[in-house]
Structures are given as structure tokens and as C-alpha cells.
């Protein structure tokens, strides 16, 4: 994987030193809270309900084993022994003291980690397909381009004070594991008819209080022009985006109000005037980045592992794990192993320091020392020999992370909600736990099949409820926690926004209502249909009448 060079290391170390000085000035009273708040946010430090929260960037969701071990050390030394992986593929520590933050940033900097661009109105940490470099489905490795974006956007002076935050996702495969259509910019790698590598450029997607799907403004942008074209989009947004109203400041509002075609014309005009050659990455630098990601010496192996097949026959839980958590690898004899952080009963996305250390050890022993973070708040060991899958599974069982439920009903996305977050209206985690408990029986979850349930504790939609097959939004109704359900959303390549099922439900009605929705699906489905497919075929009414008939 790519390692930070001397320039990156110097930037990160300088930033940590600068923040140490800023904290000292705040503690002495030289800086007021109003002056300090934007500075701490630029270093990922938020004030939540019970403590400060530090959000650490995980560039395009890729971690080395050493970096994961460092996150474990920070969880142990400065937090309560755990961290929370987020839908932005970052990690958050929930119990941070301001006084400790400079030491934490120094410690992160030692392994090339930081909290730059995890907050504020800048280009945030770019996310990419967690199967990058491992799946045969990809046209090209999205990490190469994500790293180029990282270098270009890091502390970019022109784009540090945008009208609002800005998120970019890159998928290298047609099967979209990045939710590209609900990002400010979604980039999908493709090849033109004559074989030229390029991007489909989607702009203006987003969730929050006004959800939109991104619209394609360019079917095929030659890949080598990525950075100049992104510059043109950002300049157009910086110039035309609204700064008078925080709720209308995201690029999605601009694209929706101008229309994608008109917005695209503005971008093309801007792009035509740019000095593209000065911005686009030289081929030699791209080649350097690409080489850094091609450092894995795969062995020549038979495509089928006799050892794994024998182990599966002897162990049904392993067979289930392989069915649900192991995906095909581009290299024969290897697999992509998903680690679910959704063990029913636990907090979605939470990982203890001991678990992080154990996963880092598994990655070192069996997976070339690489770990990925997914936007569904799970982890991935992208390159594991099929022969080694039984050992990895056993290792995960020992740390309670062998749940075989990827994309099943118990693999629920949930934001921290009102248990931690100062913005939340309602709790999200206990709702997720109540639903997961109903699908804790693995055979039951498998019978239901793919069902993506996503829960947000407020309208800001960190839990991606708009694109859940079943979305759940916490609202405050006369001082009580209520939950609004939406159906039919998808963040994948068949992206869509969910439709509201009906009036919000009290907390204790949510899990039983999900049961009811699943019952309707099981009754109505035809062979091969997922929940989402059945919903799209039969429509909202059957589901609505079942839930609200019971609620009466």
C-alpha cells in the first residue's frame, strides 16, 4: 500500500505541533472558544455530549496493521478501550480530553495518521471501494486515484473554506460499494469504447435534510484529467454555491437549482479556461503511486482450496462465514474476507483495542498487513489465501467478530445517535441492537437474505437512512424519541432514495415493525428477489398497511 513520503510526514507532524500550540493558547485563555472551535474542528476534534470526540482520517479506508495497532494503543491509553468506525470509513474516539489531543495527534503522526479534513468546509477524506485491488470486478484500482485526490486536496488553500463540506467517493467497479450517487462527487472508473480509462462524473448527490442522487455531468472524463476537472467543479461550486443559508449550501442544492445540464456547462467552461497541465498529475507521479499499490506478491495457487472445502464440510459456522463474508478475489486461490463489526448485541461499528490488535495480527499473518474500512462500518482483509480462511475465521471467533452477516438484516448501519452525539434527536444504537436481536439466529437472517437497514439519530443522516432498504430516522416528537421509517432506498449501483412509510413510530414499535415488513416481504417475494426487489415490484401500500394495521 501507499506510504506517506517525507513531505506528507512533515505536513502531518507540523500540523500536530501547530495544534499543540493552539490548545495551549486556548487553555491559557489567549484564544476564546469562538476562536478555538474552528481550529479544533480542523483537527477533527468535536465536543459531544460526554466528552470530546476525535475523528481520525483513514484515507480511502485503507489501514496498515501498524496503523491499526496504533489506533488500538490510542483507544487504550486515551479512550475507554474502544473506537467507532464510521460511515465515512473513519474512526472516532468518544472519550477524548482536550489536554490529551496534542499527544494523540503526535502519536498518530508517527504512523502517518492524522485528523486533517475530517471536519470543516473542506474536501473531506475521500472514500473508495473497500475491495480495491482485490476484486476482479474493477476497471482500475480506485486507490490510485483516491491517493491522487488526497495529495491534491490536502490543505488545498482554495478549497479550505468552501460554502460547505465536500465529499468524494471513487468506485473502480460497476458494483458500487461506496454509495457514490449520494456523494457531492461520485466517480466511477470506466473504459470508453476505444479502451481509454476514464471516469463517469456524478455531481450533487447527498443525504441530510434534502437528499438527492448525484447526476452524471460527464459520461467519460479521460482519467488523466481528473484533478483539473475536479478543480473546475470545485471552483464552480465555490463561486456559485450559497453561503447565506447553511441548509442550502451543499453542492446538491446548487446542482438541483441550476439543473445538472446547466451546472455541467458551467464546469466545462471553467475547465476550458484552466491551465489543465499545471493541475493534472504527471504520468510519472501517477506511475509512482500506482507502483506503491502493486507491492503484493501473490502466489500461484489453484483456484479451489481443498483445505478450505474440507474445513467447511466439517464446520457449518465456517461454511456460513464463507457464504456471507468471503468474496471472490481477482487472484486464484485468494479471497476477500469481510469482518463484521455487527455482532448482534454489540454496538455497530465499535471495535475494542484488543480486537484491533488481534485483527492487525491476523492481517500480518494472513493478509499482507492490510485492512480496509467499509462505509457499512465493517472491516475487510482484502487478500487472504483461501487455505488460510479457516485460521482467520478461528481467530475472529476468539475475539467475538465472526458474525456471518454481511449485508444481512443484522448488519445494520447506525450513527452514534443521542447516546453520544450533540446533534442527535434520538438514539440509534439501541434501535439497531433491538432489530439485530431479532435476526441474531444466523439461519433466520440468511433466509431473509440481503436487507440493508440503516439508522440515523437525526436528519443529518450520518446513518445513511435515506438509502437503506429499510431506513430509520430518529425524530423528536413532543419531547419523545420517535422513528420515521422509509423503504426502498439504495446506496449501491441501483441507487434510490427511500419513501416514507407513514407516521413516525415510538421506539418500542420499531423492531416489531421491521419484523412485520420482513413478514410482508417473505410472503410476497418471488424466487431470487431481495427485499428491495420485492418492494420495488409491489410498492409501498402492502408494507404500509401491514405496519399501521398492527399499530392501530
Amino acid at each position: 500500500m501507499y506510504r506517506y513520503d517525507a513531505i506528507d510526514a512533515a505536513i502531518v507532524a507540523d500540523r500536530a505541533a501547530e495544534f499543540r500550540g493552539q490548545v495551549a493558547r486556548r487553555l491559557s485563555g489567549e484564544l476564546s472558544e469562538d476562536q478555538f472551535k474552528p481550529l479544533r474542528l480542523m483537527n477533527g476534534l468535536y465536543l459531544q455530549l460526554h466528552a470530546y470526540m476525535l475523528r481520525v482520517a483513514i484515507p480511502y479506508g485503507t489501514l496498515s496493521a501498524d496503523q491499526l495497532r496504533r489506533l488500538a494503543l490510542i483507544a487504550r491509553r486515551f479512550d475507554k478501550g474502544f473506537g467507532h468506525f464510521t460511515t465515512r470509513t473513519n474512526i472516532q474516539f468518544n472519550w477524548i480530553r482536550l489536554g490529551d489531543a496534542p499527544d494523540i495527534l503526535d502519536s498518530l503522526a508517527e504512523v502517518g495518521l492524522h485528523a486533517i479534513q475530517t471536519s470543516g468546509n473542506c474536501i473531506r477524506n475521500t472514500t473508495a471501494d473497500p475491495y480495491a485491488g482485490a476484486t476482479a470486478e474493477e476497471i482500475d484500482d480506485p486507490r490510485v486515484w483516491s491517493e491522487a485526490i488526497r495529495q491534491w486536496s490536502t490543505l488545498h488553500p482554495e478549497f479550505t473554506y468552501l460554502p460547505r463540506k465536500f465529499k468524494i467517493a471513487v468506485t473502480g467497479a460497476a458494483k458500487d460499494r461506496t454509495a457514490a450517487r449520494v456523494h457531492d462527487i461520485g466517480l466511477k472508473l470506466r473504459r470508453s469504447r476505444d479502451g481509454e480509462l476514464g471516469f463517469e462524473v456524478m455531481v450533487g448527490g447527498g443525504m441530510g435534510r434534502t437528499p438527492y442522487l448525484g447526476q452524471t455531468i460527464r459520461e467519460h472524463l479521460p482519467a488523466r484529467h481528473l484533478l483539473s476537472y475536479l478543480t473546475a467543479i470545485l471552483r464552480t461550486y465555490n463561486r456559485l454555491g450559497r453561503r447565506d443559508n447553511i441548509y442550502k449550501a451543499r453542492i446538491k442544492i446548487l446542482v438541483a437549482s441550476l439543473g445538472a445540464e446547466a451546472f455541467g456547462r458551467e464546469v466545462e467552461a471553467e475547465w476550458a479556461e484552466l491551465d489543465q497541465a499545471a493541475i493534472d498529475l504527471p504520468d510519472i507521479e501517477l506511475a509512482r503511486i500506482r507502483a506503491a499499490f502493486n507491492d503484493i506478491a501473490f502466489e500461484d495457487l489453484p483456484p479451489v482450496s481443498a483445505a478450505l472445502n474440507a474445513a467447511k464440510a466439517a464446520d457449518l459456522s465456517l461454511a456460513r462465514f464463507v457464504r456471507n463474508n468471503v468474496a471472490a478475489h481477482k487472484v486464484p486461490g485468494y479471497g476477500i474476507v469481510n469482518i463484521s463489526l455487527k455482532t448482534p448485541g454489540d454496538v455497530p461499528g465499535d471495535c475494542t483495542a484488543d480486537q484491533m490488535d488481534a485483527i492487525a495480527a491476523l492481517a500480518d499473518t494472513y493478509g499482507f498487513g492490510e485492512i480496509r474500512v467499509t462505509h457499512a462500518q465493517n472491516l475487510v482483509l482484502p487478500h487472504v489465501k483461501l487455505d488460510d480462511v479457516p485460521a482467520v475465521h478461528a481467530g475472529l471467533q476468539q475475539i467475538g467478530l465472526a458474525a456471518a452477516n454481511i449485508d444481512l438484516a443484522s448488519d445494520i448501519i447506525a450513527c452514534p445517535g443521542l447516546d453520544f452525539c450533540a446533534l442527535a434527536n434520538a438514539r440509534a444504537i439501541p434501535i439497531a441492537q433491538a432489530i439485530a436481536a431479532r435476526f441474531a439466529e444466523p439461519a433466520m437472517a440468511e433466509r431473509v437474505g440481503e436487507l440493508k437497514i440503516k439508522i440515523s439519530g437525526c436528519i443529518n443522516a450520518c446513518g445513511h437512512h435515506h438509502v437503506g432498504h429499510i431506513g430509520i430516522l430518529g425524530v423528536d416528537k413532543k419531547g419523545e424519541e420517535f422513528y420515521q421509517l422509509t423503504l426502498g432506498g439504495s446506496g449501491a449501483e441501483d441507487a434510490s432514495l427511500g419513501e416514507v412509510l407513514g407516521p413516525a413510530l415510538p421506539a418500542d414499535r420499531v423492531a416489531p415493525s421491521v419484523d412485520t415488513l420482513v413478514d410482508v416481504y417473505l410472503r410476497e417475494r418471488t424466487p431470487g428477489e431481495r427485499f428491495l426487489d420485492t418492494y420495488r415490484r409491489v410498492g409501498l401500500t402492502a408494507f404500509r398497511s401491514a405496519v399501521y394495521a398492527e399499530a392501530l
Partner: protein
Amino acid sequence: MSEAVITANSLVAGDVVFWAGGGWVEALADAERFADPSALDTTLQTAKGQTTTVIDPYAIDIVLEGGQPVPASYRERIRALGPTTHPDHGKQARGGAGVEAIAAHAGAGVRSSGRLGLIRRK
């Protein structure tokens, strides 16, 4: 009649604190209670002046349950206890009569935001 306390987050640790006798305490049970709105407003101004100790002091409504103060809103109850998902984390881990009183009334509150002054006090 309803009473109020003043709460904030401490600057250095970020944890939840309550006003008592010119300084800050960690447990709601030890907080100074105000029945008189003008005394509350005056004290709140004093509290807001302690800018190197705390961040953003504000007043919240409480009710008395068995003599123990309990925030009127569920948001403030979670602040006074800790996350409901981790009973061993936050103030609730210390236990005691004050914590038990809040936990016993951790259901629905009268308002999600316990912050006074959003709705003008009469």
C-alpha cells in the same frame, strides 16, 4: 414549581459539569438548584464568565424525584448519566442515589432539549 440547574462541559476534559457554589461539580445531585429565575440568570452570567474552565454554560429544567434532581429532558438525562449503550461508561458508572433517581426516570421527557431560554421563560 420547577427548578433549574446550570450545566456545561469542562474545557480540559469535555465532561459534563454542574454549577455549585461558585464552581463546578461532576454529579447532578450536588448541583446548586435555582427556583428564582432572576437568581438563575445572574448566576448564569457569572458561569459564562469562566471561559477557561468550561464551555457554553446553560440552564436546564429539573424535577425532584424522591428528593433527587432529575433533568426534565431525555437528552439531559443521557448527559447526566452517560451513554445508555454503555452502562459502565460516564457518570452512571459511579452509581449512588442521584444516578439511580435519573436512571429510574430515563424514559420519555417533556422536551428533547433541556436547554432553557430557547423557549423564553415567563
